[in-house]
């Protein structure tokens, strides 16, 4: 082992294993699997593979409970991204992933490389990315640090996505103090792929060459996966050199080259190098195929002099891919990448011995069994326990809430709330139109894109109300799914499947683990009820700083399809003198609402009831009614309740409304309750009768509440005017709340 010795690596012991993030038991397990003490390169590899981020060791047993089967599912969880059928051969390939910690350390690059990573996950499978979204959580904008982080994160997402040429068509932004030192940046991408052109991470066929393509390997992000698997501390500062720089131009070239390559039959399998770089890509490919690989690490294109095997295996340099080509086609593959000015090198070959063997200048420097290390990674059934704060929150009694006389001001305050206000400052920095498919641009409930080869369209919405998840993680998990589904249905599309990004605190704390288990249970129930399986996802634990966790935040992205994209609906009033119908029953639920937070500075009570049956009916009705072209527009009722939803519908075309109720309830509850399974629809007189018939057919509770008229928003109850505001005034507040803070 003279080559190995030349690197002067230290001998591996428990201390070194610990420094790399392995627990004592894990180190023991590693020795048992190997039947010997690992060397330094090997222990580095094992510790990355077994990090929470790569191994899912705390979440695995729970994730198994999620429904993953369904008529539309072509590829469920386990590959780089999930795939569902949209129209015959035409499939959608999508996933959401977190880049939270890097985005706190260096907001621009952290967010940018998050986008780069998720795009690669999608085009690795042979899909051309056609839409991106992002789900963001920050501290509140009264804080300079938050402003700086948000400015950087949004610029980073824009910088990467715009240059790459994928439209960023939607997303969400939520603000709360709990994210001050631990923002969440979840990036989503969706691509289109033909069913017979899907590529998987396979390494088959003894002797087939393993080819490295893309950017050169540098010392970026070494041990990034481990960093994502730890709590944040003052010490994280010292880990800063881990930051990776994104190169969207190179990624664009990589995309075009890969898609050109995939048109031919030159390759067997392909895998992007994401977290833990060459380590996880090579092990995954070998273990999935039950084969083995030899890698000649000195052949890897490097950016810096003197890089060692350890560094090469653990680098997280961006914009790189590993592929297995068919023997004899190497030159064809190389030619295509040369055409696109990309680095390409044959760095190894497929074997059948089940081992990953690493060579340096002809000598073996590491030797690890692929399958045992991937599949016998530690798995934990961590203890969980209901936290005490839950009971405290439940003791809240809504009826004791102080009454507010001036409800107009309440409405203005809600429209001015960062969580409700227009996110235009964010989305206008994103090119949401490139590729000319965007039929519904940001600002409506769901984004809708057309597919040029089909009549169908794809609708997308990203949702999660972390406050609901905090007060009741199980309901919160369900509500994230149903809200996303409802938003998709508002455009007229049928919700089909979800991907999720589960952002939680430290799973070693039983209270956090409880939140996780409960939220997952809620998600599961909703997915089953709506028949929207989970096809991909990602878990991000350790979202804590100095012992304080973020709200449990299971981000859901729902993907749906609309039969004829020409029938797509938007969520703004379309014409004067149409009828406004409120669908769904209000239970006047005010717990955990935006109203409670904004107007009473309270986070208390319980989340609204989950009404899976009613949600399903509402969705089916929407799909049916929009398919028959019976509706002018539709908007669901969510944060801020009826009054906010109604106001939002008036803004785009500046069409006002007059509605009246006759209810025995406090005015503020009537206006701002966040009861679920509700929507506002706009119907022309011509279609009123047919719509009523259809609502009855679906057994939906509804009420014809008023008409579109004027340039004001007017709401009465029992004859009294409780809201009367000018649209332009309301719109000004809504449009400027975030923009004003960011300037």
């Amino acid at each position, binding site marked *: 082992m003279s080559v190995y010795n030349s690197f002067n690596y230290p001998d591996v012991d428990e201390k070194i294993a610990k420094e790399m993030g392995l627990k004592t038991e894990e180190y023991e397990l590693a020795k048992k699997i190997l039947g010997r003490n690992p060397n330094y390169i090997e222990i580095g590899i094992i510790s990355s593979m077994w990090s929470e981020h790569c191994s899912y060791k705390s979440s695995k047993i729970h994730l198994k409970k999620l429904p993953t089967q369904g008529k539309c599912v072509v590829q469920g969880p386990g590959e780089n991204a999930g795939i569902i059928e949209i129209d015959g051969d035409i499939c959608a390939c999508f996933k959401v992933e977190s880049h939270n910690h890097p985005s706190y350390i260096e907001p621009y690059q952290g967010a940018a490389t998050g986008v780069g990573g998720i795009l690669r996950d999608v085009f690795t499978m042979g899909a051309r990315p056609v839409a991106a979204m992002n789900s963001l959580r920050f501290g509140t904008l009264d804080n300079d640090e938050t402003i700086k982080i948000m400015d950087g994160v949004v610029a980073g997402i824009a910088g990467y996505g715009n240059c790459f040429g994928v439209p960023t068509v939607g997303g969400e932004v939520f603000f709360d103090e709990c994210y001050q030192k631990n923002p969440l940046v979840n990036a989503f991408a969706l691509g289109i792929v033909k069913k017979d052109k899907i590529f998987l991470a396979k390494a088959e066929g003894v002797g087939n060459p393993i080819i490295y393509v893309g950017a050169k390997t540098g010392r970026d992000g070494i041990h990034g996966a481990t960093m994502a698997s730890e709590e944040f501390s003052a010490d994280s500062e010292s880990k800063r050199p881990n930051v990776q720089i994104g190169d969207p131009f190179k990624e664009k*070239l990589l995309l075009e080259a890969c898609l050109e390559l995939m048109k031919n039959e030159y390759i067997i399998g392909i895998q992007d190098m994401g977290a833990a770089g060459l380590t996880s890509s090579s092990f995954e490919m070998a273990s999935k195929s039950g084969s083995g690989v030899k890698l000649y690490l000195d052949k890897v294109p490097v950016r810096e002099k003197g890089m060692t095997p350890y560094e090469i295996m653990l680098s997280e340099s961006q914009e790189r891919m590993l592929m297995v080509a068919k023997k004899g086609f190497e030159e064809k593959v190389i030619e295509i990448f040369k055409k696109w000015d990309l680095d390409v090198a044959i760095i190894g070959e497929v074997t059948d011995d089940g081992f990953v063997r690493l060579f340096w200048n002809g000598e073996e420097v590491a030797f690890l069994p692929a399958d045992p290390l991937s599949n016998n990674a530690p798995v934990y059934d961590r203890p969980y326990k209901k936290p005490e704060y839950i009971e405290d929150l439940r003791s809240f009694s809504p009826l004791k809430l102080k009454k507010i006389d001036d409800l107009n001001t309440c409405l203005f305050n809600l429209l001015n709330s960062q969580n409700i206000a227009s996110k235009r400052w964010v989305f206008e920095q994103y090119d949401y139109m*490139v590729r*000319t498919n965007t039929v519904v641009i940001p600002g409506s409930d769901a984004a809708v894109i057309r597919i040029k080869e089909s009549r169908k369209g794809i609708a997308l919405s990203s949702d999660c109300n972390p406050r609901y998840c905090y007060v009741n993680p199980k309901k919160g998990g369900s509500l994230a799914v149903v809200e996303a589904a409802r938003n998709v249905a508002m455009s007229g599309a049928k919700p089909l499947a979800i991907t999720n990004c589960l952002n939680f605190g430290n799973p070693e704390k039983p209270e956090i683990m409880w939140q996780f288990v409960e939220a997952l249970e809620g998600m599961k129930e909703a997915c089953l009820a709506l028949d929207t399986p989970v096809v991909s996802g990602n878990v991000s634990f350790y979202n804590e700083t100095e012992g304080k966790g973020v709200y449990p935040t299971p981000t859901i992205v729902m993907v749906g399809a609309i039969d004829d994209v020409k029938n797509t609906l938007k969520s703004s009033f379309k014409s004067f003198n149409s009828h406004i119908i409120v669908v769904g029953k209000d239970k006047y639920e005010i717990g955990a609402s935006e109203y409670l937070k904004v107007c009473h500075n309270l986070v208390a009570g319980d989340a609204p009831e989950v009404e899976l049956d009613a949600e399903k009916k509402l969705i089916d009705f929407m799909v049916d009614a929009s398919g028959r072209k019976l509706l002018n527009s539709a908007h669901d009722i969510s944060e801020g309740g009826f009054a906010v939803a109604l106001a939002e519908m008036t803004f785009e075309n500046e069409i006002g409304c007059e509605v009246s109720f006759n209810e025995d309830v406090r005015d503020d509850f009537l206006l701002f309750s966040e009861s679920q399974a509700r929507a506002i629809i706009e119907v022309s007189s011509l279609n009123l009768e047919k719509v009523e018939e259809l609502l009855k057919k679906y057994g939906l509770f509804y009420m014809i509440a008023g008409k579109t008229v004027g340039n004001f928003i007017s709401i009465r109850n029992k004859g009294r005017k409780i809201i009367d505001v000018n649209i332009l005034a309301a719109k000004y507040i809504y449009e400027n709340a975030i923009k004003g803070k960011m300037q």
Partner: protein
Amino acid sequence: MKAGVVVFPGSNCDHDCYHVLKHVLEVDTVFLWHKERDLKGVDFIVLPGGFSYGDYLRCGAIASHSEIIDSVVEFAEKGGLVLGICNGFQVLTETRLLPGALLRNRDLKFICKNVNLVVSNVNTPFTRFYTPGEIIKIPIAHMDGNYFIDEKGLNELIENEQVVFRYCSETGETFDDANPNGSVDNIAGIVNKKGNVLGMMPHPERCAEEILGNMDGFHIFNSVKKYLKGGI
């Protein structure tokens, strides 16, 4: 008529332009690869939007040194029709086929939104289907669209009626509030002296189909098509 869409590494509106020409206007259309010099007999060239070479130097600067550009310049000098959209406009100023330069947006941010434009020259092969002073809506999506030219140059542009589009309000005023990026004199698009080369920051290919809710950009491509057919 035969159209060619140039593909630089990093072009990302190439397929969008191709789609509009080929499938919406049903024109024979080919891609032109940046490493080649052969224009494949086209009589209309589009330099599409995107981030050629990542726009890592100045926008369009590296692209202006690619092989295909030598042929494009020759083609333009002989009177061939060239349309540069967004990054394509930046390439055209970098090659000096069009005067001036495009600087970083005044607010230093990327801007994607619909803007109103007033058409101030309808006598180009690109704008024959607009009426003088017509207000149209076309989206912009750029980081560096802040058109700059010195005073002498500006006067020349105006004198020769080279300004084709200006950013304006819904009612056509070209005041500063309607200027999204700080361009001199609200300039959004210009032609060369001969009128055969148009550069514009807004994206007409993004509003040339019914389903996208706006057809205002369609007329530019259609104008070129009719012009080349000798129709107008």
